């Protein structure tokens, strides 16, 4: 399990400044839904940050803006010193649905990024390394529909990683997996993160996942989408899911999100 070139920091810093984004409401073309309202966020090179919040808080919108798939109404997004204008192989994106190309074998799916950039010939020797990295070296000739959910998501990760992205954007990548596969995959993503040193931004609705994995947790609130608070997770790695500190942090976050349950009157405004 050796990464192609291990322990190099490939990541680059990410800066979101006062970004606003609204969409036309699908039911009423006159009103607009404010998906993001003056959102600012700074992420250091090689940092792993989670975006947590209820649905409709603009997490996925923010990720699409960073990927360059949409552009903001106002504000600026930068990777390193460059402004984000369009999608780029430097910013990989993994969705909840693996979205593997069903007409390509596992191997060809992983190679897709190299073909798209026209560098397959020079970099073909890296493909085997990435197939090993995600433990799929014997599945190269299989088509995606033969794979389980976890395997398909590993292929999607390898496909995004083969371009050595400076920023890896993960949009609930483990959301559709069962609890056990999910915990195993969390460890795999962490292993990939440590091996590659990419900057990672993880959208999740699973608070345990956010605490277990990230350096910082960004809490967002909906309508309009805003950043409510940022929490630094100071627990040493590898983390224990049942340690006292872990559970204390979990309680705090649930309270902030108004999901703690018992002490309704003690909520902050």
């Amino acid at each position, binding site marked *: 399990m050796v990464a192609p070139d291990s322990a190099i920091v490939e990541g680059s810093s990410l800066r979101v400044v006062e970004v606003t984004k609204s969409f036309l409401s699908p039911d009423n073309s006159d009103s607009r839904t404010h998906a993001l309202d003056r959102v600012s966020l700074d992420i250091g090179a090689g940092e792993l940050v989670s975006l947590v919040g209820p649905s409709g808080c603009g997490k996925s919108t923010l990720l699409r803006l960073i*990927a*360059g*798939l949409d552009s903001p109404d106002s504000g600026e997004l930068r990777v390193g010193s460059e402004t984000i204008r*369009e*999608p*780029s*192989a430097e*910013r*990989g*994106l993994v*969705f909840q*649905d693996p*979205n593997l*190309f*069903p*007409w*390509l074998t596992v191997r060809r799916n992983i190679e*897709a*990024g190299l*073909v*798209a*950039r026209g560098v397959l010939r020079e970099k073909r020797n890296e493909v085997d390394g990435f197939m090993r990295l995600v433990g799929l070296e014997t*599945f190269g*000739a*299989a*088509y995606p*529909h*033969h794979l389980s959910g976890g395997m398909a998501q590993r292929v999607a990760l390898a*496909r*995004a990683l083969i*371009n050595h992205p400076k920023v890896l*954007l993960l949009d609930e990548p483990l959301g559709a997996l069962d609890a056990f596969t999910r915990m195993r995959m969390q460890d795999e993503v962490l292993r990939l993160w440590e091996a590659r040193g990419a900057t990672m931004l993880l959208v999740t609705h699973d608070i345990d996942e956010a605490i277990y994995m990230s350096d910082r947790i960004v809490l967002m609130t909906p309508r309009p989408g805003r950043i409510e608070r940022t929490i630094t997770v100071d627990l040493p790695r590898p983390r224990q899911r049942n340690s006292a500190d872990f559970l204390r942090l979990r309680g705090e976050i649930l309270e902030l999100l108004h999901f703690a349950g018992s002490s309704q009157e003690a909520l902050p405004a």
Partner: protein
Amino acid sequence: MNTALVQAKEPVPPAPASEAPAVRSEVAVPATADGLRIGTLAALPVATLIALAVHVAVSKSEPPIDTRSYTVFLGSVLGLSIIAVLVQPAWAGLRRWMAHMWPILAAFVSLLCTWEAITSGFRLLPLPYFPSPASVLQSLINDRKLLFDSTWHSLFLLGSGYAVGTVVALVTGICIGWFPHARYWGMPLLKVIGPIPATAWVPLAMVVSPSGTVSAVGLIALAVWFPVTMLTISGIANTRASYLDVARTLGAGQKYLILRVAIPAALPNIFIGLFMGLGTSFLTLIVAETVGVKSGLGWYVSWAQGWAEYGKVYAALVIMAVFFSTIMTVLFKVRDRMLVWQKGVIKW
């Protein structure tokens, strides 16, 4: 079969035929590994024997020169079926094929027998419009050279028309499906021109084009063009947005998005269009040959009809049936090959 890709290392065991995959998906055939039932085994030889007896009985009154070929034909079927029955205990592959084909072949021979009884036997249908199978076979053999030529001409026309139509349709379909400007200008044209049956253009085609062959190729191409274009457009335009998003974050440019995402995603749709186009192209081929080109199977049928040689008409129909279904089968094989990734995703 579906897992063959993953488990390609294991050689397929030759035949503990209890689960013969060829049979599984078809109508349940009461036959399996340990042997075919006597009833199944006897079906074809018995049916052929009856057909032969009927034939000998009814053909006594006719000149032997007209009926000998059919006698030879039925005799060969009888001989081969008896050999097959004798050989099958030692040949599992043949046994599986027989389990699948024997009943249908027996039904076919019985149908021939009924046909002969109705026509030559009881003379229930007026001649010369309804000849017996024996005289159809005789026409087929007598006129084999002209029939072969006609088939060859038809194949040439169909092949060139279908190829031209498909290429043009793919280009227009991909442009209209992908580029909004092409869609704005192209779609109205397509909606107005497309639904006109290609055969309706025959008068214009005969005036405009330099030769009958060119106009026939053009008409067939037009017939193929419309369905293939429509289905290509819908396939390209309905490419899942998330595939395109993923490709763009992998560094894909316009060329990759069209050639390696949109087109493969549209391929299942495109094949539906190709099948529809094949149907309309058969129709157009026969019409074009009947009214314009002076060769080919369509021309042969109307020519033979002009001479009231209905045996030849039916012979040409038999050739057409074989010809068209062979082409259909070829297209199915091409699709199975190109869409191999779909196996197991959808029901074929």
